[in-house]
């Protein structure tokens, strides 16, 4: 009886023993499964395409291999809709068994899958979503960001506008959604802390048909106009702004005059001073190679989304190298990812703070025409090692409410 049991059970035991022993060896040869949430349809598709280009370039340069292991990429189209993003994230994790996700594009998409990511415990690297609280008051242990927060480049711009440009009174106008609110708020705080005054705040709906209404309201006795737009709205606004013959200088958020939209703009963009963690005009060997490669592959300059996805992949590589490619050891991998410090990023050195958000250079840029007639964001000043908290004390920063339409309160409106 016992003999029979043993003879029956033994092959099974042996087989499972063999299987257990073979797993580590086999896993090292298996490809790393990377999920990629992007947008291929709808209004955000241009950004999605640029993210895909950034990631594709990285994989091409690395011959589809990171830390000695092949990469299998699973791309999903979220259509820029939060509900779809959630479904696609679930598909990537549960059906495709991805071990890490790069994505999604929009902040509201990232917020939509935040709970699911916590519950499924999948490492995720954001190549674009900039909502402040994702790395501030609502830190998700599985989430790191390859790009900065909405306000991260806007703090230095506020200081630059007050100190270097000498502006005293500024009018702000931005998209009436979180990304616009947070950007304007960061600018206002730093600008007013340096002695400036925001004298008028205008908000236009994301899908506003006509900017004429808003442009006619701008107080033309102010020193400058700050714009904080995303997607198509920066170019749309600037075109109309010039048509109305308003003469005030324009300072801008990163996405308002991003390389992704600048290529289709004309003289209306000339002279706009903006602030961002990247510009194709950064004068470093790493960036020149990167820009050259993107020019070759896609006949365009890299911008916000391209460098975001490329930077996310670099961050993944950095973490994987540290754990010798063993992404299966989730905790070790996540630890490596959260302490990533990337030195070969086109933006310069990018290292994560304890909240999972990069500390990196912020560039003050000016739109100029290059010798071949192309519009470029030329670097006029570099702020080194800028954190999401700027030079504010993190604990105090986090004790305040998150940046919004009404915080910090505008006390100097006229």
């Amino acid at each position, binding site marked *: 009886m016992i003999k029979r049991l043993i003879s029956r059970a033994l092959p099974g035991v042996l087989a499972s023993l063999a299987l257990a022993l073979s797993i580590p060896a086999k896993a090292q040869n298996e490809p790393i499964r990377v999920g990629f949430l992007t947008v291929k349809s*709808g*209004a955000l598709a241009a950004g999605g395409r640029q993210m895909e280009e950034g990631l594709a370039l990285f994989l091409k340069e690395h011959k589809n291999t990171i830390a000695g292991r092949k990469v299998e990429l699973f791309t999903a189209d979220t259509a820029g809709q939060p509900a779809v993003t959630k479904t696609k994230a679930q598909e990537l994790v549960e059906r495709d068994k991805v071990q890490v996700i790069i994505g999604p594009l929009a902040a509201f998409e990232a917020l939509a899958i935040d709970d699911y990511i916590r519950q499924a415990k999948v490492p995720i690297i954001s190549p674009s979503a900039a909502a402040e609280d994702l790395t501030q008051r609502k830190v998700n242990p599985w989430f790191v960001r390859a790009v900065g927060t909405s306000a991260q480049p806007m703090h230095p711009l506020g200081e630059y506008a007050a100190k270097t440009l000498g502006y005293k009174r500024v009018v702000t106008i931005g998209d*009436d959604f979180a990304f616009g609110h947070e950007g304007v708020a960061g600018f206002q705080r730093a600008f007013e802390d340096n002695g400036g005054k925001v004298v008028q705040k205008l908000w236009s709906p994301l899908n506003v048909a006509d900017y*004429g209404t808003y442009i*006619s*309201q701008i107080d033309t006795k102010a020193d400058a106009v700050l714009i904080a737009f995303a997607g198509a709205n920066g*170019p*749309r606004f600037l075109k109309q702004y010039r048509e*109305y013959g308003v003469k005030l200088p324009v300072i801008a958020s990163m996405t308002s005059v991003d390389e992704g939209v600048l290529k289709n703009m004309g003289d*209306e963009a000339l002279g706009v001073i903006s602030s961002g963690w990247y510009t194709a005009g950064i004068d470093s060997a790493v960036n020149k190679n990167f820009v050259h490669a993107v020019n070759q592959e896609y006949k365009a300059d890299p911008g916000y989304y391209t460098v975001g996805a490329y930077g996310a992949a670099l961050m993944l590589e950095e973490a994987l190298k540290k754990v010798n490619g063993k992404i299966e050891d989730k905790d070790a991998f996540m630890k490596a990812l959260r302490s990533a410090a990337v030195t070969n990023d086109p933006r310069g050195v990018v290292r994560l703070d304890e909240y999972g958000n990069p500390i990196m250079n912020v560039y003050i840029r000016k739109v100029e025409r290059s010798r071949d007639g192309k519009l470029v964001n030329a670097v006029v000043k570099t702020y080194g090692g800028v954190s999401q908290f700027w030079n504010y004390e993190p604990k105090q920063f986090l004790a305040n409410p998150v940046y919004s339409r009404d915080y910090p309160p505008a006390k100097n409106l006229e």
Partner: protein
Amino acid sequence: MGFWITQSLNSLALGGLLFILSAGFSLIFGLMRIANLSHGAYFMLGAYVGLTLLQRGVNFWLAALAAGAAIAILGGLVERIVLRQLAGRTLSQVLATLGIAFIIADACLWIWSGDPIPLTGPASLRGAVPVLGTHFPLYRLGVIGIAAVIALALWLLVEKTRIGAMIRAGVDDLDMARAVGIPVKALFTAVFCLGSALAGLGGVIAGPILSVYPGLDADMLPLALVVVILGGVGSLGGAVLGSIVIGFIYTFGNALLPDLAYVILFLPMVIVLVARPRGLFGRIAT
């Protein structure tokens, strides 16, 4: 004072654009009894076609007319090939136009990429002119003029020509029109072509103000709906009045009560729907 003048001119310019967009929508709605949900897509496609022509160095006005003609042909084909097969089934027709809108939007994304592209207006209308102590873009004054010319031409067509009489008869009573020998099928195609042409033309005319970008279709379609419901379907006068009213409400709503801009925009529509389902000028209930 400057504020009121500039914003009034803004309202009129926006109203002009809305009229070019919604006149065709209204005629199609009135005659064929269907809300053509691909109208916004025709508007966007027209803008893209115009853009391509402009990039090839074609004159702005020529590009606008050519885009109108191209969209007219497309509209005619859609009417003949798709909508006619579904004759009498209004809901199916509306759903078909919605499907076509999605197809056009995706095709635009595929052909022109998703990048927002500003469309350059004619050189003769560039810059701003002084208007009573304030500055106003010349092009927007041009748009008001163009819309007025189109409105006049449409009025002459509908009120003074034989085909116009047939359209009016069709809008008032389709069965009776058919019974007295009006070639209703041909009329449907003609009106659908005309409406599409206006949408395509409108897209190019609006280009220098709105730019061209994915999502333009979805941004404009609700405005056309509001205009037509307010003014009354199938009524040219209604489209004119509705466009101007919505132009003013939209502009002043955004300027004075920005938080409530959309409430202010859609509330009049709801009130009109409840209190006067035909719209201000409509002959038939929506």
